[in-house]
């Protein structure tokens, strides 16, 4: 089977005030249709850069990206992006934000009524029908991220690109959104590339975890196949030795092989990325609910729904 998306020898050099800076070097990756890929690595290693090259927002200096046999040169809705900080237009309601995308992508292909149904369908997928006429400043961070996902899904992308989609959310909200995402994925079987700094999230959601070495000149260090049958359940997996084995492998890559000797971070933090110290903090937080120690947080499905309304 031919891969849907292929990155070949991708490298990029930024020209900065202090001369050129090589961010990526020889990144090779083949992704099949319906695969869920996580990109993980220390902050500032170049994850967002890889994603932005696939999105077409950045141009690779060497190598290239081929989607469905065609080279990627510019951004487009067939490679929808979910940005870390939602990027909703603050003056539009949730519905109107999705509408902007749908009108753009399906102009002339869907009737008005079909578009409306399609917008509502996508908002329903992310459980946002109850607040679809609210504006971003009237809904919580988790809800904004849900709308961002709905907007991306509504474009019917060939590849869904997500840059730390849940990075700014609290652990509980994040868990709800991960579950929602797994449900949606079961239904739509999208091809996904997701950047994360959360080891549990990566293992829980992915088919493969792509681990990146530290920059400069970052590249792919290891790729880990996650052979856990779906649907996956976070509570059952918490006791599963395979799950813990995968977690351990990612952790050992990040904290032994690619240990950051110097904890200080690059001076420039483009696009308001989370800082390195947050990585560690966030990991502790998620571990609290994902590992056996976090069983006290266990909740029934009914409570789940209630929490979703409250926290998401």
């Amino acid at each position: 089977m031919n891969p849907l998306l292929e990155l070949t020898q991708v490298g990029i050099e930024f020209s900065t005030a202090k001369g050129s800076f090589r961010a990526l070097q020889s990144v090779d990756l083949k992704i099949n249709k319906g695969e869920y890929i996580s990109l993980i690595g220390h902050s500032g290693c170049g994850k967002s850069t890889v994603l932005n090259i696939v999105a077409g927002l950045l141009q690779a200096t060497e190598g290239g990206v081929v989607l469905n046999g065609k080279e990627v040169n510019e951004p487009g809705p067939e490679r929808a992006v979910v940005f870390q900080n939602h990027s909703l237009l603050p003056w539009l309601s949730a519905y109107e934000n999705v509408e902007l995308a749908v009108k753009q992508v399906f102009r002339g292909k869907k009737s008005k009524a079909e578009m409306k149904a399609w917008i509502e369908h996508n908002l329903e997928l992310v459980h946002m029908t109850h607040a679809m006429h609210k504006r971003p400043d009237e809904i919580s961070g988790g809800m904004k991220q849900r709308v961002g996902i709905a907007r991306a899904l509504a474009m019917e992308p060939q590849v869904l690109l997500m840059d730390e989609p849940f990075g700014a959310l609290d652990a509980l909200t994040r868990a709800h959104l991960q579950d929602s995402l797994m449900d949606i994925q079961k239904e739509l079987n999208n091809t996904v590339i997701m950047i994360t700094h959360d080891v549990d999230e990566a293992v829980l959601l992915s088919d493969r975890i792509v681990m990146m070495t530290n920059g400069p000149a970052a590249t792919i260090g290891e790729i880990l196949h996650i052979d856990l049958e779906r649907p996956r359940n976070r509570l059952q997996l918490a006791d599963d030795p395979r799950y813990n084995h995968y977690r351990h492998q990612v952790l050992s890559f990040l904290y032994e092989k690619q240990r950051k000797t110097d904890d200080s971070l690059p001076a420039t933090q483009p696009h308001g990325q989370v800082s390195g110290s947050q990585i560690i903090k966030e990991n502790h937080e998620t571990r609290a609910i994902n590992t056996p120690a976090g069983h006290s947080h266990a909740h029934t499905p009914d409570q789940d729904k209630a929490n979703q309304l409250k926290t998401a």
Partner: protein
Amino acid sequence: MSIALTQTLSKISWLEPMIKAAQGENRSQNLSIIAKAIGIPLAGILVFLMIWHAAASSINTSLGKFPGPADVLIQSKTLISEHITEREKAAAFYQRQDERNARRLAQDPDYIVKIRDYTGKPTYVDQIGTSLITVLSGFLIASLIAIPLGIVIGLSANLYSAFNPVIQIFKPVSPLAWLPLVTMVVSAVYVSDDPVVAKSFVTSMITVMLCCLWPTVINTAVGVASISQDLKNVSQVLRLSWLTHVRKIVLPAAIPMMFTGLRLSLSIAWMVLIAAEMLAQNPGLGKFVWDEFQNGSSNSLGRIMVAVITIGLIGFALDRIMLLLQRSVSWDKSATLR
């Protein structure tokens, strides 16, 4: 109905406690809030009037004492009564004309009715009207130029760098410097046997426009240039056309800054107008002040002082109107609007 009205009224800050007090909610507390909200500004005005009164009586000019608050009150009453008398005269004139025409028609059915306009001198109220029309026309034309220009140069860093020096140089130019140039150009270009509007009006309006263009241009450009990269990325991923990008993303994002500029522009326009009218002899408040100054009667200073206060009040009102407009169009309700 009454609930809706109460809700609307309670958006006005000092009315809220008043309504609550009237509804019997926590009466004493609300009354003290009212006392503060109205009482303190009132006390400020009173103190100002006292200082003004004291200072005025000790300043002697060749036209008599400097007008105090009492003189101003008397003069404003006179100006209003002059206006009323003038209107009555005009009404009487038109009535006589109508009667005369009716009589002529009765005698000779083929008579073609001629209607003449009343040619009395403009009253103070007419002059306020002229000033408002002039300033609003100048401001409107300036905005129609400044907003598109601001958007275009805000979108491109190169255009911004190209325009910036020109803007920075023209921004501080006084209206008095523009006026002779504008007057000459208008005299040369605006020639017509039957002009729709007076030359003095065009000159004042263009001077106002030239002076109030810049704050809107600059603020709009800055608003457009500071749109977050995330929103630009969204636009790129959606492959929005240039026009859709401007309409759906750039314009709404820049509206708060644009209005900051528009409010600055309008207040500059109003300040510039008075000077422009004085020199261009446009029959508005500026000309009123100038004429009174030339006139030099014992009432003149009092009448000029009435104009000063009128100018201040109108300037304040214009700014409040812009603020209300800004509140109704801006999506960013959380932004502090002052």
